[in-house]
């Protein structure tokens, strides 16, 4: 049951956006309070879209820099979260395309199967369990080919519409839906497989 004394998230965001817009130049306090609500999520998105731990924080920061300088253009037709996630998606896709050009390897090429490496030590400790679960999810996502991983992240993490996903990836609507369906099936299959390995380890 939501706390009735707390403003809805969207109202809080709009208030902080207004405060950030009206703040004197160089005063980032309101903007920082705004992005603190989303930085962990955006970082996870960047990490899993690019499968690159080293660059994910830089990418997340660049998303927030774009958001800061684009605040005047945010009209509030969608939620700030949704607007931010669209910036993130386009930024990460552009990064992946540049990498594709450098390496000469299509981002659609499948990742090597890393199922055998998903060995997570079982533990009764709650924090470690939570961390283990995150590692397991990361391992599964990293092992999936980009054709399935990217639309899955855009749908189930970013909650973008099928139309937005199809448009961002340059594919048809039916293809987007089919990829997401297959991605979910593949994720569950691999995730359960990783769970079996963890239990076998214990």
């Amino acid at each position, binding site marked *: 049951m939501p706390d009735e004394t707390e403003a809805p998230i969207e109202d809080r965001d709009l208030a902080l956006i207004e405060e950030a817009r009206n703040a004197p130049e160089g005063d980032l306090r309101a903007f920082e309070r705004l992005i603190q609500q989303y930085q962990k999520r955006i970082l996870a998105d960047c990490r899993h879209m690019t499968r690159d731990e080293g660059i994910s924080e830089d990418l997340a920061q660049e998303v*927030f820099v774009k958001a800061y300088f684009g605040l005047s253009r945010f009209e509030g037709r969608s939620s700030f979260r949704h607007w931010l996630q669209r910036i993130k998606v386009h930024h990460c896709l552009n990064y992946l395309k540049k990498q594709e050009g450098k390496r000469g390897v299509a981002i659609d090429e499948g990742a090597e*199967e890393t199922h055998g490496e998903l060995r997570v030590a079982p533990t009764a400790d709650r924090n470690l369990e939570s961390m283990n679960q995150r590692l397991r*999810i990361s391992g599964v996502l990293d092992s999936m080919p980009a054709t399935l991983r990217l639309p899955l992240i855009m749908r189930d*993490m970013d909650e973008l519409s099928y139309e937005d996903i199809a448009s961002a990836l340059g594919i048809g609507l039916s293809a987007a839906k089919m990829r997401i*369906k297959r991605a*979910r099936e593949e994720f569950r299959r691999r995730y359960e497989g990783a769970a079996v390995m963890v239990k076998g380890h214990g």
Partner: protein
Amino acid sequence: MNDDKSDPDAIPPADEPGDEGPDEPIRELMELEHETSPGFLARLRGKIHRRSAVSHVATFSWYLPKVILIELAGMLGHIVNVLGTRKGSER
């Protein structure tokens, strides 16, 4: 196991009535977050400040030559006027 040889873009059969598309979202992904490093916000602040500074310098670099040219044109115009007045008074 990673044998996804089927075409991911293959057009599925026509949607049946009530077919919303894929099945349930992956719950684990809906809540996934990663901790940022301790200096994340400080580095972000630095990037924003640097970008702002560059933007100001770039704006000024366009504005300054225009101002100089306008001032030079004004000075030349003044000199021409003065010379023209002197010649007129000598006659």
